[in-house]
């Protein structure tokens, strides 16, 4: 097969796969369900209590996909993080989601502290130390109106009829809440949410505290690998999972 034919076939396959994850559709099939345990531990203990609090909670191995190149000028990226381990628990009126994934590169920094005084009153200003680094990050996305819909929103940040909430955590810049109604519409609400992250032995462990979501809600996960220059839609994503 000539290269041009190959690329046509490849484009068709890519288009089909894009269509399946880009559009709002029927509920995900069985096998994409996440069991949610009602934990005897408190939400705070699950968030800050270390691994012991999560020992009894079943882990689900969720496959991650790499977004196809979004722009002509994108550098190619390989699948370095093939999956994320997910644990979910209900406690104290909250839903706690623990994401655990292997990432040998720890792409996070402590940003220099910016003094409270206005910069024009200071002789020394805080410097930009590097302009070309990107940081590890992860997110949990779910419908803004959980449970009220029969179909799942578009995986590409929802769609006009199906807005989504995104709980986004960045290893350097922290937790931030976002809303979106389709690709390119993401807005930061300016609010934060409780999160706890640790990086040990090449593993990220990030626990998100979400509002309690009813059984049957679809959730999806995303992981960004800073060393692969991930940001924006250049990332790893899972397909929708259903909370049991």
């Amino acid at each position, binding site marked *: 097969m000539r290269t041009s034919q190959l690329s046509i076939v490849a484009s068709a396959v890519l288009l089909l796969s894009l269509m399946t994850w880009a559009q709002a559709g029927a509920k995900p099939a069985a096998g994409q369900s996440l069991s949610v345990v009602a934990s005897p531990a408190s939400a705070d203990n699950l968030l800050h209590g270390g691994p012991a609090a999560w020992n009894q909670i079943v882990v689900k191995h969720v496959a991650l996909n790499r977004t196809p190149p979004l722009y002509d000028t994108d550098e190619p990226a390989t699948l370095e993080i093939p999956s994320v381990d997910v644990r979910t628990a209900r406690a104290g009126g909250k839903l706690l989601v623990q994401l655990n994934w292997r990432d040998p590169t720890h792409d996070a920094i402590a940003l220099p502290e910016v003094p409270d005084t206005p910069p024009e009153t200071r002789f020394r200003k805080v410097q930009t130390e590097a302009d*070309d680094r990107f940081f590890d990050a992860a997110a949990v996305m779910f419908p803004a109106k959980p449970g009220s819909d029969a179909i799942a929103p578009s995986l590409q940040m929802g769609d006009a009829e199906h807005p989504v909430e995104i709980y986004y955590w960045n290893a350097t*810049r922290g937790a931030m809440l976002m809303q979106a109604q389709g690709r390119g519409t993401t807005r930061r609400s300016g609010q934060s949410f409780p999160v706890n992250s640790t990086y040990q032995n090449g593993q990220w462990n990030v626990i998100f505290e979400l509002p309690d979501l009813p059984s049957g809600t679809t959730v999806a996960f995303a992981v960004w690998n800073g060393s692969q220059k991930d940001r924006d839609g250049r990332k790893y994503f899972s397909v929708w999972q259903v909370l049991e």
Partner: protein
Amino acid sequence: MSRHQYAMVMDLNKCLGCQTCTIACKKLWTDRDGTGYMYWNNVETRPGLGYPRQWDRIGGGWKDGSLQPSPLPTMDDYGHAWEYNYEQRLYEGKKQPVMPSPEPKSGCNWDEDVGGMNEDENYFFYLPRICNHCTYPACLEACPRKAIYKREEDGIVVIDQDRCQGYRYCIKACPYKKIYFNEVTGKSEKCIFCYPRLEKGQVNACAAQCPGRLRFVGLLDDPESPVHKLVLVHKIALPLFPEKGTQPNVFYVPPFNPPKRENYGKSIQEDPRVPLDYLMYLFGPDVKDVITRLEAELKKTQEGGRSEALQLLIGRDAETRFHVLPQLVQIQL
């Protein structure tokens, strides 16, 4: 396309390399946290490395309607900020001289006045650079957040700091590398053509402060403006790297004066001080015609005639050099 387009012309024959424009800009706009390395306006020696280093060879811009790839310049290309060990020398009694740390290896105007050789003669000139506020901005196309927009009323290209999320696709796309990332705020920043000043009838800070009086500002579509006359009537100003496809709105009168040593009586094109190849590299093939026109204007005055174009380039007063029309570009609410 915007309804109007502000533009700037810089006459490179008059630039002293004094960096007054750079400081005017820096004091006004980039004296904040995270902006230390940002020079929305910089002046670099040409031929030379430029700022960031080798920006003209990195990539970006358009080709056949598609954005062209480019890596991000690194802080090694901009130069790391350094500090001097004054405390050790002045208060701790250390005998060694005051030294910068980390060792400076690059910086803005790092190779000042080095230039190049034209046969056996050294030559250089200064190239002041701001954002080109392009008609077809590659940065705007590259931004997935749609945080960059071209103001409809005056064509100035700005980054909405609320929408920007610091993805830096714009920096890659800009063939002039005139967008800078602020790691403190996590957002990208660039020259705003001093639009808050223009809206109050004041010309850009870099142009207002220029002791060489080499900057001309006005609307390209205003027949009364000096930029309209220099670019479209006299046709003696050209954009930088036109082949990058963004259609810049900053134009340069190429350096053609003074003549090379001992070439009295020869045409500048016959024995140029600055090699024509280098000027063609910067300004494209049209630079030949521009130099021919400039030479003809010069000859006219040398023979006792009057040249409108050269009179304008002298730019004796602010009224000649600047034509700011705030009433024309105010947003209609």
